């Protein structure tokens, strides 16, 4: 892989993705073989907005490689509170760490930050833009459960603002995957993602309801529709209810359908789905550690 920074899945080729997933598989099979791989490496964590899974799994990943973290901590107790720019913050923190992980509420923040540092910088979510490491663990989960080629996937929920959706849709253009997009009219894929899919020769199959395509799906990727995207609560409730699934609805799906979700969920996947063989979202979250270990190991050692 010839990238110093990971800011978007658009920069990743099929070969890049497969190399990381292969390494993640090796790690998952024998974690102890990687326990000292990045001894003494320090990972700088700069989270300008809340995170549970991403931040904790990056911390676990570097520690399981033998390294450690230096954490900026909450924005309220950092120099950002004093008005420091992101460009200045990353230039300072790169002196403390061997690689940086940045989550920031503005789109394009990781791209901009990467222009100011020499150490590898990883985008852990930039507003409604991209979340490439989530995509890598999503692809790992899909590869384990359904395979990445000959795949029919439904991606449902907030496709307009969902950064995990943007990264996943763009990454899947590297594979023989038929993508169906299920959302309310107001939350369809944004123009830039449509443009990229079109450029890659992918057809964009859009639906406003799940039921017609559910029986054909190998994977259903569910995302949360947030109330703040709607002008009032009643409109939100009317729309969001259309994009919730439960065990009863999944009786129309293939027996081996894989249901995924980047989490956290609110009520878009009923708890009764957890008990079915379709549910893979907790496994998906757990896969964040070996996949991020593989990515960090690759970036910190240079060429794989």
């Amino acid at each position, binding site marked *: 892989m010839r990238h110093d920074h990971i800011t978007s899945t658009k920069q990743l080729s099929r070969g890049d993705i497969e190399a990381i997933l292969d390494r993640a598989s090796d790690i998952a099979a024998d974690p102890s073989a990687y326990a000292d791989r990045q001894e003494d490496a320090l990972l700088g964590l700069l989270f300008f907005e809340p995170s549970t899974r991403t931040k904790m799994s990056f911390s676990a990943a570097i520690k399981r490689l033998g390294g450690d973290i230096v954490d900026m901590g909450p924005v309220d107790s950092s120099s950002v509170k004093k008005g420091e720019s992101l*460009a200045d913050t990353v230039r300072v923190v790169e002196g403390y760490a061997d690689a940086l992980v940045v989550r920031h509420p*503005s*789109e394009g923040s990781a791209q901009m930050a990467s222009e100011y540092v020499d150490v590898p910088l990883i985008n852990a979510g930039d*507003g409604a*833009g991209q979340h490439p490491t989530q995509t890598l663990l999503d692809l790992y989960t899909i590869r384990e459960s359904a395979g990445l080629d000959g795949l029919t996937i439904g991606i449902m929920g907030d496709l307009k603002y969902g950064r995990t959706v943007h990264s996943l849709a763009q990454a899947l253009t590297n594979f023989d995957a038929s993508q169906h997009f299920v959302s309310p009219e107001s939350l369809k894929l944004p*123009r830039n993602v449509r443009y990229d899919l079109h450029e890659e020769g992918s057809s964009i199959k859009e639906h406003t309801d799940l039921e017609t395509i559910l029986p054909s799906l190998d994977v259903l990727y569910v995302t949360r529709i947030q109330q703040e995207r709607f002008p009032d609560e009643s409109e939100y409730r009317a729309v969001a209810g259309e994009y919730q699934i439960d065990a009863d609805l999944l009786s129309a799906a293939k027996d081996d359908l894989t249901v995924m979700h980047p989490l956290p969920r609110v009520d878009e996947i009923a708890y009764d789905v957890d008990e079915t063989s379709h549910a893979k979202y907790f496994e998906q979250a757990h896969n964040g550690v070996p996949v991020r270990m593989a990515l960090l190991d690759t970036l910190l050692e240079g060429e794989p």
Partner: protein
Amino acid sequence: MTDRELRVSKIENGTVIDHIPGGQALNVLAILGIDGTSGEVVSIGMNVPSDRLGRKDVVKVEDRELSQSELDVLSLIAPAATINIIRGYEVAEKHRVERPTEVSGILQCSNHNCISVDDEPITPRFEVLDDGVRCVYCDTIIRDDLPAHILV
């Protein structure tokens, strides 16, 4: 040609921008930052019959030559434009505009949540597409109303 027409059409020194798509002349003036308050002498022809474009606009600005960044943005809304630099009533230079692959520091991103509109030390940059521009930071594509996004 009457004297009256001559006074409008001939300039001593300045720039004539020809072959602007019909109706875009005011946007060209916006790109040049000309709103009538800065004193330049400007003549405009709008929807003039043209063999090449059907209808074209022509803008003549006295005592002004265009910068490269102005030409770059001009190319986005008037890709067929020709630029005639006039010195001493004669055409001293004649250029076609060329679409650059990237424009920097002349357009502002339309996405209010883009890092390039925050208080950061960066210059907004856009990749030029066949039918618009794309922010290199947040990927937002701007197709319509480019002059509304010109940095002033």
